[in-house]
Structure formats: C-alpha cells, structure tokens
C-alpha cells in the first residue's frame, strides 16, 4: 500500500536572476514500511525532494499525498501538525537543541503533540533505551559523541511513532563504524516498527542496506533498483 505518492512534482528556485529547476516533474510512490534510499550526485535534487515530500518546503507545482492526504493542499499549520504527529526527522548534523539534555530532546516532539509530561518522559526514556543510550539520558548534546547524537536524533524522530521517518544524510558526519551501527539501527527499527524510512544519502553502503534505491539526476528520477530480494526484509513494495 502506498504511503507516499507524488505526481509531476516541480520545484523551481529563483536566486536573483537565476532560475534553478531543482525537481522537474517527479512521479514517485513509496510503500508503507518500505526503507528507501535516494541517491545521486550533489545538486541532483535529493534533499529538495525529501523537503518537499515531508512538507517543510513548498512545491512549485504537482501533487503530494501522504497516507492518502494531499499535503500540497494543507495550510502551514495543518502541515506542521501533520508533521508533528505522522513524521520524524533525522538530519546530517543532528540538530539537537544544545540547551536540552538527551532525554529532553527526545521528549520534545511528544510535548509538542500534547503528551502529558510524565508519559513523555517515560516514552523518551524507553526510546533512548531502544537506541542504546539510556545511560546518557541526562547528558547535553555537547558531551555526546557524533554517533550518540545521531542515536538521540533517531530516538527523537521515533517519539510520536510516526508513519514516516525522513533522514537526510544521517551518516554524513560519522565514521564508517558508527555509520554502520546507525544504519543497522534504522534497519532494525524499520523491521520492528514497520515504519517507512526515506533516506537521502551519498553512501552506496547505506543504499545497499535499504529495500530500494532511487537514483536521481538533474531533478529527475534516473532509475530505481530493488534490493528487497537481497535484503530478505519481507517489506511490501
């Protein structure tokens, strides 16, 4: 069953007198519980696609449906609330709030959606436990390693049990060993929770561990390769 569907997606940036066509009529469908990698050379439109699909950027034209709801027709507030309840985000540079501890960062999306403080704290603790960081719950980001920070970001992304997790270069700032651990963690969570993961990456090893790789070139989807047979993940395509 398709959880993400977009038709003829166009995104044009206007920088001074220069017009950049970042997305040139993308058609894409991603199934529920799928773990998809979006790959391609720098400037091909990977992050723009992710931003448009997740609703943090507006499209120039085209249609995006998430869980059957048309994102492109939603007001900013509705889109924001939808993101808060149905989506999670993982960024390359973690983007944790430096003033909050690890557990406070994880509970933030829960508090936004109105979860009572006590419940939010319990859930955040259990999520940190799930990513293997319960012992670092009271540390602030500045005293965590890169891998630990990204685990906190993953825990934060999962806080509201979202249907979709968007990850933009989640391993871009990590060494190989940590990178492998993070991808394995995402894979495990994807298997366990049946949540859809859309990962933008440059790293072929990350792509190889996903169910499908979508290759982009100059704002278009060049091709798509299916790894599901190799992965034996059993995910629905």
């Amino acid at each position, binding site marked *: 069953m398709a959880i993400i569907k977009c038709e003829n997606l166009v995104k044009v940036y206007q920088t001074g007198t220069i017009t950049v066509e970042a997305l040139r009529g993308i058609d894409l469908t991603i199934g529920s519980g799928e773990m998809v990698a979006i790959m391609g050379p720098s400037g091909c439109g990977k992050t*723009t696609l992710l931003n448009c699909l997740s609703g943090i950027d507006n499209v120039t034209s085209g249609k995006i449906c998430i869980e059957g709801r048309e994102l492109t027709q939603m007001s900013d507030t509705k889109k924001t*609330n939808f993101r808060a309840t149905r989506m999670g985000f993982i*960024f390359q540079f973690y983007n944790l*709030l*430096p003033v909050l501890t690890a557990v406070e960062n994880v509970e933030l999306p829960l508090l936004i959606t109105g979860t009572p*403080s006590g419940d939010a704290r319990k859930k955040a603790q259990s999520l940190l436990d799930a990513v293997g960081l319960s012992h670092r719950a009271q540390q602030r980001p500045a005293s965590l390693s890169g891998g630990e920070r990204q685990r906190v970001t993953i825990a934060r992304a999962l806080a509201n049990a979202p249907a979709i997790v968007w990850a933009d270069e989640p391993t871009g700032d990590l060494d190989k060993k940590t990178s492998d651990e993070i991808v394995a963690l995402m894979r495990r969570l994807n298997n366990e929770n049946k949540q859809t993961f859309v990962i933008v990456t440059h790293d072929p090893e990350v792509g190889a561990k996903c169910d499908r790789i979508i290759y982009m070139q100059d704002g278009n989807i060049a091709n798509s390769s299916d790894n599901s047979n190799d992965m034996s993940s059993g995910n629905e395509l």
Partner: protein
Amino acid sequence: MVLLTLLPSIFAPAIILLLTILFVLIDAIRNRILFNISIRNVIRRPGTTALVLAGLMVGTAIISATLVVSDTFDNMIVGEITETYGESDFFIKGSGENNGLYSISEVESISEDIRGIHGIQSADWFLRTSSGITNKRSELGIPDPSIFGLSDDAVKNLGGFKSHSGISIENLPSAGHVYVNEKLAHVLDIEVGDIITLNKILNYEEVRLELIVEAVVANHALGGLTGGRNIYLDMDDAQQLIGDQDLVNYLAVALTNDGRNDPGPLRNTIESIIESPSYAALKLEISGDRAQIIEDGREGVSMFTSLFFVFGSFSIIAGIVLIINIFTMLGEERKSEMGISRAVGMQRSHLRKLFIYEGFIYALVTAAIGTFVGLLLAYGLINAVGMVMDLGTFDISKYFTFTTTSILLAYLAGFLLTIVTIYGVTRRISNMNIVRAIRNIPEPIRPRNDKKALLLGLLSLLFGVLVMFVGVSAESLGPALGGLSIATISMGLIIRRFVGDRIAWTVAGLTTLLLWMPGVEIFPYDGNLEMFVIAGVFMVTALSMVVMFNSDLIAAVLTRLLRVKNGYKAVFKTALSYPQRVRGRTAMSMFIFGLVIFTITTLSMMSGMLGVGIPKMLEETSGGFDIIAISSAPIDMRNEIETAGGIIDSTNIEDIIQLTMGYSTFTFSPLTDNDEASKEVYYNAIGIESSLYERGHYPLANWNHTKYSNEKDVWLAVQQDPTLVILDGSANSNEMSGTGISINVGPFHGVAIGDQIIMNNSTGGSHALTVAAFMEQSAFSGAYMSKELVKSSTEADGSNLFMIKLVDDTDVEKYSVLLQNRFLPQQLITIPISAIAKEAVSQVNGIFDLIKAFLAMGLIIGITGLGIITMRSIHERRIEIGMMRAIGYTKRMIVTNFTLESSFVAVLGVFIGTTLGIITGYLLWDGGFSAMGIDFMIAWKPILLVDAIALLATLVTVIPAARGASRVSPAEVLRFE
C-alpha cells in the same frame, strides 16, 4: 563630575578629542584593510546598526542633558540675581536700635566713605519697609509687599526702571504717586491710574496712605529688586509709613566694571569701614552680596545637577553594560569569520583593531547623536520643570542655554565612554580557539578546577579588601562597603572550585546582598548621595547572580505553576532553557533591566511616602487647625472678629488660639558635634497657652517619663516654668542607617532631653532653658516656652501667631484670603494647611516624576538591549528554528518561544529591580523618613505601572523580531546553513 573638574576650559576636551581621533585615524591608515572591513561591518546590517546606535547614544544623551540643564540653571541664577540686584553689588543694613533704622544725617558719612573707595561706583541709602496694600478698583489686597523709598540719585545709580513697553525711566514718581512692578500688578490686577491704599499699624495706630499708580515697571533692575512684589515711591512718602521723615535702613553699593571683576577685596574694605570704631555702634553688616549669592546659587544648582548625575549614572552604567553586551554579541556573531581570519594569518591584535575601528566609527556618530538628543531632552526637562513647579509668572524656559564647553564635554565623555568600553571588550572577543571558532562550536563550560578563575577570584578578593581598607582608613562608607562587596562577590570565583557554580554564586550573591540589608551596619561611617549608586549597583549585581544561577529552578516552578497545556509545554521548555545557556548575556540584560527598574522603584517609593507623609506632616503641624496665621502687629483676633467681624462671618470660625511668637538667638553645646564648643542658632520663640495643647493636637515624641506622667503635664510645666522649653521634632536628627546618608533636619541637632540651651535676650541678657521634650511635628519649627518669657526676652508683644479652626465644610482657602484682607494693616499672613499640603505633594511628585522621566532613558537601554539579544539569538539559531519547525513547532509556537525567552529575562530583571527598590525604599524610610513622622508604605500603583510599561515595551520590541523568526524557512536553513 571628575571630568568637569579636570577639564574646566573648552580647549582641554577639544584637544583630548582631537588627539584620540588623530591617533586612531593614523593607526587606521596604517591598517587600511582592517579599517575597510570595519566600515563594511558597520553598514552590513542596517537594522542591527540602528539598534546599536540607539543603545550606544543613551549614555551620551544623559550626560549632555545634565550638562545643559546645569548651564541653563547657571544662566537662570545669574540672570535672576542680576534682575534682583539691579546695578547693586552689596546691600548693607543694620541691627542697631530702632529696628535698624538710622537718620540720614547719622549715616551719610558712611556712604561718602564707601563712595571714596576705588572700584565703587555709587553708594545710596534708601528705605525698605512693608505694609498691607489694597487696589481700590479691583478690591484685591496682600499683606506683605516690599515698599522702597528712594532718592533721585539712587534711581539713577541703581539702573533705573523700565516701563512695561521697554522705555527707560530714570526719575522717581511724583509726590502722591507710585510705581509698582509687574509681579505686584499681576497679583492685584493693577493698571496705571489705579488708586492703591497702603496701611499698617504703627505704635497701635493705623497709618493709611492713598497713592496713584504712575507706572507699572518691568521686573528688571530696580523693578526686580529682591525678586518680590514691589512698590516704589519717593523717600518722603515712604517715610510716612514708618512715622519719621528722616529715617533710612538700607545702603545699596554699586561697583565699577573693574570692581566687579574682583569684588572680594572691596567687600573687605567696606567691612573695615562699617566695623571701624566710628561706626561700630551702628551694628551695620553686609546683608546682600551679589557675587556671593551667585556663588551660593551655583552651589545650589550644582546640588540639583548632582542629583541628576547620580540618578542618571544608573542609566549610564546600564549603557556601559549594554555596550559590552552589544560588542560581545557582535564578536560571537563573527566568531566563525574571525576564526578563518586567524587561520589565514591575522594576529589577535588585528582582530582587536577591527572592533576598535568599528567602535571608533560608532563612537564618533553616537556621541554626536547622543549630544543632540541630550540637548533636546534638556529643553524638554526645563519646560517640564516650569510646568511641574508652581513658578507663577516666572518663565524658566527663557533661560534655556548651553555652552560650547558643555556640548564638547558631553561629546567627549560619550565618545570616550564608548571607545574605552569597547577597547576593554575586544580583549575577550579576540581570545579564541581557531578550530572552535571556524566550526562555530560553543566555548566549553569553565571547569570547576579552572586555575584562571581561581586566580582571578583571589586577585579580585585582594583588590576588594584593599579598597575596603582604604575606605576604613578614610572613614568613608562608599569604598569601605563597596570594597567588602567586591570581596564577597569574588568569593564566588574561589568557592566554585569546591561546591560548584550554583552554590558558589548563590552564597556569594546572598552574602553581598546581606551587607546592604536594613539593620545591617558594618561600618559606622557617613555616606553621601553617591552611596545610592554604589548600593544600587552592588545589590542588583548580587541578586542578578543569585537569580541567574537559579533560573532553571525558577523556570521549572513557573512551568509547573502556569499549568501550560498542549504543545506549549515544549515551547516553555525551549524558551526558558536558552537564557541559561548564554548566562553572560542573560545576566547583563537582567542587570540592565534590574538597575533601571531599581532606580525608578526607589524614586516611586520616596515620592509615594512623601506624597502621603507631607500632608500628614502638615496636618501634624497644624495640630488639627485649618489655618496658621502670623501678623506683624499684635491682634486680639478673637475679640475683633466677634465684636466687629467685618468681612469675616464669625459663625464660620470654630476656634482661634492666640499665641505670641518672637525671634531670638539660642546658644548650646551640641553633644554629637565634637568640632564645635558651642553653637548659636536663630530660632522662633513661641509662647504657649493652655488652649494650644488642650484644643490642638500636638503630640510629643519624647520627654522625661520619670518626671512627667503624661504629655499634658509636660506642656503645663513648660507653660508655667520659664526655665523649661519644648523643641520641635527637627531637633531629632537622624542618619539613614545602612546607606550612611544623613539628614540634618534641625539646627538643634545633638541636643537631648534635660540639656540646657541659652536664650539670648534682645536687651543683651541671657536665659537658661532646660529641654523638657521634643514634639512629633517638625515643620512648624520653634522653641515652645512660657508666654511671659517670650514677651520679656524678645520684642514680641501681644498675640501675633494664630491657630484657626473653621467650621466643617467652610472654604479654607477663601477664609484664608478674607482673614488677610481683614487684618491687612496688621499684615496678617495666613497659611491654609490643606492647600499647602496639596501644593507640596503636587510639587514633590512633579519633581520625582521629572527625574523618573529622565531615568526612563535607562529603560530604552534595557529594551534596546533585549531587542538586540533577540535579533542576535534568532540569527544564531536559524538552524534550530528550522529543526523546530520541521518536527512540529507551528509559526505561533516559534513567536511564543522567542517572546517568552526575552520576557523571561525582562521579568527577572523587573523582579530584581522592584524587590531591591522596595528594600531601598524601606532603608530610606528607616533611616530618615520615619524620623520625620512619615509612615512606611509601598507605592504599588506607580511601581507596577512602570513594571508593566517596561514589560509591554519589551514585548513591542521583541514580537516583530520573533515574528521574523517564525518566517524562517526550515528547508532553506537546514539545507544551506
């Protein structure tokens, strides 16, 4: 103030300014690329530049306004005294027999001798007296105009008159005619041709003169003499009022221009003449000295401007902290580019120069803007003074002026203030780790065992102790308590090593605060007005430290108390956490807000207490009566009103108490003043009768309880025993405990119950009096004693002091005027207590409001500071905002987040300022106002109004910036920044 004394001439500030500019410019030419970068940094963000300029110019504006106000008052003093003295430089009068009246033939030789001195232009005798006056046409009258009987020579030599239309008049009015000055004409609605009646009681007989007004003369030269309401007439006519055709009592001396350049020696020569054996018996003395009065006036003005400087210095200090804050933030904003600059080879000194050049450009511009704004502010203040004070026809705004020296000084002070502060800040900014700077990684938190912090703590402690010992050795409260406060604050840097930041700074802050609390007196020294600034700065610093290092607890309590619902819990969490991350800038903003609100709250406390206290004091002074009246000639008022009431309806008068008041000198040995063996004071001697304490309410503050069982016994004893005296409450002088500010409220300071004071009789004898009690009230000053003693020891005869109680709902002000008119020949002057109270309260509040308005400039500093912080904080957290928007913060949540963040700092600052202001208000009450019989009260309304305005203004400044933050595109910032 130091600058003022160091740089008296226009050249000194100009030279310093030019040298500084020259020095920086030469350096800038040698480092042209750095100077170019600095110029571009100034213009790269116009919005921030505008805020920086606004913040930096406030200190200069306050300095400029104070100097221009001082110039204007100086101009007013000189101008008014020139008017009051005309061409005269000295007035000589006597205290010899016959009430200081002398026959012309007796004193003519003195004026001739004085005229013979080189440097003296003229010396002319004239007669000055007083009487009741009524304008027949308007039927208006007053009891106490000054009447001048002049000779033709005196008119010419003393500058003559000017008519209303500006025409010079150099001759006397013809016989049977008078000139009146504009001040008198205004009050009595006098026009040329009106008939005026002068009448007074002389040796129990009424003297009455009817004269025609020949001209209304301007309040200038002779027309402005004494600055009062004047009548001028021929000497012979005037002498009819004193019943003798040959008497004079004043000698006016005018100097030549040369003489005026150095009047001191001429005064000495004149004194040697009037004190010479030939004239010593006449007991003449110089009673008016133009140069001396100008000097005294200037001293008074300097006290007034000191007040503005002292209160204004809070805003100046806040301005300095704002400059530090602004440049620290500019440093943080450019940290990454500075890191890159260092990586490619720039030295630390280059980075410092970048900021110094930038600061130099800002200082040049802001000092100019600030000086001009100060000029406008001063103009507004001068006009406001005119409106606030009841100055009658006096137009203070015509004296508005400024000197080039003041403008230059203000510019120089503002320029140096900015550039020196920036120079200090650059040291910290340029000290960076290059990698951390390039990657924009936050500076690590200083570890507990940081040796630099410990060393700094020890050095500060040592410095504080040294300053304290300097204060102790000089017996000066400022450095003593200030030094001790530096030492206790330094303790924070030392003990954090053992107990961590929160406990260390909380303990250091609370200890420092304790030093300034009511009831704590560590050093028994006197302070002065500057103590208020020192106390304010240390108290606000100490409480800011305590609040800052416990703000997480405050935030937690607030979140719990406010029962925040839905997603706003997350907003509260992020908004209240950020100020704790940037402790330095939060503490500085809190300090700025706290300091300004502290000053305004303290002033509100003072004006609130005085506003309630003054009417109460006046009510106590009145003893429950409505009108106090004093006459020049004795009156049997009760009898006259009852038997021949005239314009007074006796049924409206409930009670009249008739007392006798004289004037005498008293000698005593003060107990507390070791420098003087004995003191001599001039004071009212008031003869009492039983009705005063039986029907009036005059409570006693202190008396010998073993000797007298109640207050009535004391009054009775004093009434009957001519060796006893009761002194008014002003004899109980007090010091403001804690602050060390002392108020000497009466000349009998140091006298105690049971002490003896000597009353000197008018006949040359003396009389010992034992102090039996002190009264509560101090406004109606006097030594209260037996009536017979007053009559025998002074020249008072019969009743001349009256306490009048009217029937309820009678118009007090109207009866006050009616009584004056009824007893015009006796020159009865009435004081309607309630009207006076109302006027006094309005004037006190007016002055306080004026100072508060002046200080509101400080609020601009605080609010500008928060605006800058908010803008900066939005700029540096754009990626965070993007992330927050991505994970579900709505635009409204972002606006709330940033508004809440700034409001949290403002609220804490307001809390600090308000709390400490109220405590200081209590200190002032405990140390001074309570002794004046004023009750302690908190003027919540104006305090909360100022707090609300401050917070509202903060919101108005912050919300637009916060709305800007909410418009940050998450996709853009997460992708490109």
